[in-house]
């Protein structure tokens, strides 16, 4: 015989697993700090690649100047400037990524808590069906 309460719970669980749950359950494999740091490092790598490409674009833009002044350019000063800008951009992105991914992780834990609560209710229904516990024990 069909248990309506069980179907309702299982439907809610399936909907969650189909939508937010897919992402949340991936996040659940990490600790909060690990997840935020991992994402921040991924951001740092992406920003580094982006910065290098941007430098390439800028170098082509200033190609004529670079060729004309190849022997008079103060390369150490130029390198320090490029590195300084890179560090500032990287720091901003890294800290922002840490904060944003921490918040994302926290919100996913809240949804997961609800998911586990429903799982526990479902488990209780199974225990009642098997006669292990009585219904009023919930």
């Amino acid at each position, binding site marked *: 015989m069909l248990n309506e309460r069980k179907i309702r719970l299982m439907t809610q669980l399936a909907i969650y697993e189909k939508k937010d749950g897919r992402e949340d359950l991936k996040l659940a494999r990490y600790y909060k700090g690990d997840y935020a740091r991992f994402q921040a490092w991924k951001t740092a790598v992406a920003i580094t690649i982006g910065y290098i*490409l941007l430098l390439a674009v800028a170098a082509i833009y200033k190609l004529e100047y670079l060729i004309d002044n190849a022997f008079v350019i103060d390369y150490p000063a130029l390198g320090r400037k490029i590195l300084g800008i890179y560090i500032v951009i990287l720091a901003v992105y890294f800290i922002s990524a840490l904060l944003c991914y921490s918040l994302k992780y926290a919100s996913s834990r809240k949804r997961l808590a609800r998911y586990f609560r429903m799982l526990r209710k479902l488990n209780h229904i199974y225990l009642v069906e098997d006669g292990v516990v009585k219904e009023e024990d919930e």
Partner: protein
Amino acid sequence: MITILLEIREVILKAYQKVRMIVNPVVKFLFSLLVFSYINQEIGFDPRFTKLTVVLALSVISAITPTAVLVLLAMVLILLHIYAACNFLALLLLLVFIVLYVALLRFDPKHIVVAVAIPVLAKYNLHYCIPILMGSISSPISILPTIGGVAIYHILDIIKEPAAREVQLQLDEVVELYTEICDKIMADKQMLITMVVFAIVITVVWFIRKFSFDYAFEISIGAGVMVNILGFLIADLKYDVTVAVGTLIIMSVISGVIAMLCDYMKRVLDYTAVERVQFEDDDYYYYVKAVPKVNISLREMDVKHFNRHSIDGEDYEYEEETEDEDYEPEEPFDRRRMEEEDEAAPEEDVKEYKPAPKRSPFKLLVKRDDPKDEVKEEDKKEDSDEYEEEMILDDDFEEDNDKK
């Protein structure tokens, strides 16, 4: 008025529930068609990709795939057109697109579509609605794809003229052409100002929307429109950027209305999402179609009691107001009884009765990010309590919690 709106809402919900599976892809198809047509119109250098069949095929693919695919196809189409005009320029544009992706677009993949929506809407001066809408449905992180969209619009606008002029150049000429384009981009104050104003609009709308006072959502939209207008006017005065003031004001207001309608429809339609899920237990396979209950809003009657005594200390006097002129109370008006009731609670001078909001059984899963929903505020409080409880009862979570 509210009752009529609710009834309209109910009709929309019921109609949408029936045709949702068709409407969503059709809307995506139409939007994709608009995007690819815009690209072909602006930089259609390669006639092979301007054919209707190609545009339709790309639109169909975009309609049945996630929105990120639409953005990717739009980028590829832009690159192919530029490649047909000048291959070296296409390579440089590819580098620019990669930089835009890693620095701006990848952080909010959910709203990446605004990167192509802004250039398309900018043609009709309706791009002002994007930051207002982003502020009301998203978080400040959506600033990144929004300014990415502004960058794409201005780069395309700048690049189309030189790319059309020069075809298959020598390397030195290409560098010269590239320098000319970069000079124009660097000198384009309008792009920078648009980015800054849009970022401020998103932040202001998001910030005001977060408050819990009455009409916070409507006020946030109004504030977004005002900031948008003022931002561009200040830029016009201070940075010598040409802004058509009349167009700016009219289109900002229209954009505000569009953003409000889009946001309203998004909330309403998300709420009605019919879910089809499959699962099994030991005895059965279940194929479930979960249809959220739609609130049935009948014409409600508001009864207001005004007590003059509690206001100015004079004799009691009662007025009974109804929205429905044909309404007749079941019991005759009993002034003495009303006076006695009123003496029992003299501090209440105005009473307004409203029906309690009904709850959908799937609301918790289908629509969670509505800060204005009172019911959901309760749920959030429940969440915080349940969270602690869950950490203790679930083994994995308990271990996890301890380590943290």
